[in-house]
């Protein structure tokens, strides 16, 4: 039983950060900075639960999209049988544990099968499970370096190609990467941090009323989860429809030069590396406009997108805290786009 997404109190920034990524997965994921117990993994898991089922190739461990990029096996099946059986599968959150080995991450030779049958078979790893799902990395800043390298390699390509242990195998690995970190426990490599499209900061809610509401809902959920979920069904349906509508609407929202001009005006003074920030703000503001049911992008959409896309990319001096950074960004946005 999963706590309904719409019943989560507060944490609006994190919620919108996740939703925007679902509307346009090419935004590149979400990094959540903040303390424990702020409904981070609950939010991801419950959002996956809320979303419509995926159409996959029946029995494919890599959740191949019959109309998209196929894995080595599905390609072979398509060649020999000329069509692929379809099935529906629930979207889910796949967790990447900290102590993971490279074998588990990218997949490996199926040892048991090889020993018993003398045949070679690819045993899929976490990246296979994660294809077209959420990949959730708790405390991503504590992940081992070589694991991070492997993860980034496939995240960048959207494809996991394995060339090891006598196995040569390729399968799609497109996922929405959600990482969490507590900045006190060490920084993230700038190269990795840049891969996360958006970044939000979460904190426990200070408002007394809201805290009480959290307790109330949790108690209700724990008592009879089925009833609680039923009582939120309408809200869940409305949100799911909004997201599905937005997914198809983004392609109809024009991105005029005036919007691009505004984005460059925001990012230019920050002297950021590369172009990712620009592209992410553009895509996120379009997704936001679609989610809000608008037919064009407003200055407010851009401001909101910039607030999500920039905090982790700003070049800061080490003695500057993330708070002072937030203020800097806010005043900059105020100045450029009043």
């Amino acid at each position, binding site marked *: 039983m999963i706590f309904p997404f719409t019943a989560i109190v507060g944490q609006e920034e994190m919620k919108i950060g996740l939703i925007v990524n679902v509307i346009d997965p090419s935004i590149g994921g979400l990094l959540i900075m903040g303390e424990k117990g702020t409904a981070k993994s609950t939010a991801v898991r419950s959002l996956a639960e809320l979303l419509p089922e995926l159409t996959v190739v029946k029995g494919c461990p890599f959740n191949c999209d019959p109309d998209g990029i196929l894995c080595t096996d599905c390609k072979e099946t398509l060649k020999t049988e000329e069509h692929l059986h379809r099935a529906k599968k629930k979207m889910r959150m796949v967790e990447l544990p900290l102590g993971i080995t490279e074998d588990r991450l990218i997949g490996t030779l199926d040892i048991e099968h090889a020993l018993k049958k003398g045949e070679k078979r690819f045993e899929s790893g976490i990246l296979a499970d994660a294809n077209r799902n959420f990949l959730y990395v708790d405390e991503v800043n504590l992940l081992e370096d070589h694991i991070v390298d492997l993860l980034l390699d496939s995240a960048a390509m959207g494809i996991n190609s394995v060339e090891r242990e*006598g196995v040569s195998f390729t399968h799609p690995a497109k996922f929405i990467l959600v990482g969490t970190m507590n900045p*006190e426990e060490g920084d993230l490599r700038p*190269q990795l941090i840049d891969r996360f499209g958006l970044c939000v900061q979460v904190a426990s809610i200070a408002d007394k009323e809201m805290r009480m509401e959290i307790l109330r809902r949790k108690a209700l959920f724990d008592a009879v989860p089925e009833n609680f979920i039923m009582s939120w069904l309408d809200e869940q349906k409305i949100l799911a429809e909004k997201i599905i509508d937005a997914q198809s609407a983004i392609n109809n929202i024009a991105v005029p030069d005036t919007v691009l001009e505004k984005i460059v005006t925001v990012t230019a003074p920050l002297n950021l*590396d*590369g172009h990712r920030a620009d*592209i992410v703000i553009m*895509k996120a503001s379009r997704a936001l406009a679609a989610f809000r049911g608008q037919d064009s992008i407003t200055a407010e959409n851009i401001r909101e997108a910039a607030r999500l896309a920039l905090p982790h990319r700003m070049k800061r001096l*080490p*003695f500057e805290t993330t708070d002072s950074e937030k203020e800097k960004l806010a005043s900059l946005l105020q100045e450029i786009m009043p």
Partner: protein
Amino acid sequence: MSFHNFVGHDDAKLALILNAIDASCGGVLFIGEKGSGKSTLARMFPGLLPDGVPFTNLPQNAMEEALLGGIDLENTIKNGRNVQSAGLLQRAGGGIVYVDDINLIAPEIITLLMKAHGNIRSFEENNGSKPDQPFPFTIIASMNPDEGPLSSHFMDRFGMCVLWEGLKEREQKIAVMKRALNGTGAGINEDDELRRIIQTARRNLKEINVPLKIRDIIADACIKNSTAGHRGDIFLFYAARAYAAFCKETEMTARHVDGVLPLVLLHRKRALQQTKRDDTQKQRHHEKPENEKNGNEHGQGNGHEPLQNRRNVQNDHDRDDAGQDKKPPRQSSDAEKIFDVGADFKVRRLTFRKDRINRAASGRRTKTGSSGKRGRYIKSILSPNNDIAVDATIRAAAPFQTIRGRKELLIIKHEDLRFKRREKKMGHLVIFVVDGSGSMGAQKRMVETKGAIQSLLMDCCQKRDKVALIVFRKNKADVVLPPTGSVKMASRRLLEIPTGGKTPLTAGLLGTYNLISRVHKRSPETRFLIVLVTDGRANQSLTDMPVREEIPKMAGLLCELPSTDYIVIDTEDKKTFTRVDLAGEIAAMLRADYYQIDDLKANYLTEIVQNKKSVGI
């Protein structure tokens, strides 16, 4: 997205086109900051290639056996004899291998790759080659220098090199966003046209007339740029010829050589600075304008982006190169000289270190291989440890299954056992041991020191090193910052360092010793770099002994620690009569590199530390 519509970076595009025209051009390496589109462009390259030319991606996880090919498990067992399967290199034969983040791939793997790649032959010539010969192919690779260096030895193997920066022009930035949005569609026709031009150029390549004077022009260009070896000449010739073919001309001219000069010589030009440095004993920062001048010179007359504003990456090359320089090591106790010619000293010293560290590193690697199972599995080996490579073991057993009378389960014997060799990215821990005594407070010494350490800290954390901070003052040493990867924490502690009180130098050294021993026990593969910052005015002993007697004993202990290097920074005012020069003596005892406070220009210190570490990789 189409190749044609990719915004800017004309030099990178030209490099790819020339490689598509003639494989003898030797591949290309893209060096640039994150998110600047290196990989995006490289991945569009297959679209330019004629049909049937393979484009293979070398993933980060690739193992040695996967590159070379090996026993085909199923067929070997079925047939009862050794059946080989093709490796990645063989499959890539005659085509393109694309390597993202090449500087993160294990050196063993890159060596294999380069061995096969080094073979300069064109596609046509390859068609008749036998399968047991190396398979020539072109390597397209990218790297972000912030993530670590690529040995200049590997870099030199690339025919061309392009430095990338994100586009800074407003219009270009907007254009980049538009491209990202529109995806496929636009520019497809132009790409088709380009592919046709490339195909025609490939056909015409051999017909191009090469006047004798071209060889002169090439030789002159290479001499002028003091390129090391003859790779530059050869690659320059092929690149210029491909460029002539691309321009649909029948004769090679000086213009074609000029057009490709920056692509081919950029990463070889360092030799020029090297010789100059030897001749004039100039210091690094005096040379920078020189670099720029060279860059502009080559930028002229080729119609492509001039190579200005690239000083930073250029310096990275210098640094890499320094590690490769073969010169006899100089004694470190020669302190005065170090002060005069810092840059030069660095170069010579590094050669010495490199040898030593390499040996130590491989020794440690086998040791840790038996204790831990972390790190990337890169190949299987015969020499036993407790980390069995089951895949390789099964393959080794495969040919004998029929003879051994297998019914269902595979029959594995002791002699089949293979073991995993893992690559350990050695962790670096940089420990700052800072004198917090009253004498350090004088003349804002502490301010300067903190400034220098600050910049160093940021750099270390970016490069994935851990840092720790020990402060000694009054009568003890405190680990004010245990090893951490957080630059924020480190900076905060640094700001908080108080000054005042006596100088318990021995306590500082002891604290360092204890910290290293502790960390070494937990993670034996860690390499340590100790940066001792003191004015050497030790006046507080740990025992009843005088300080001057304590220190050599302590230093002796420190010297015995494995995989530890030292840098001593002397903050004493050398103009006073009462100078003690103890810091210099300690440096000699620790066989440390020794610097005085005037050397502490922030950037310079960063370079020192980076150099010391890069030789360990």
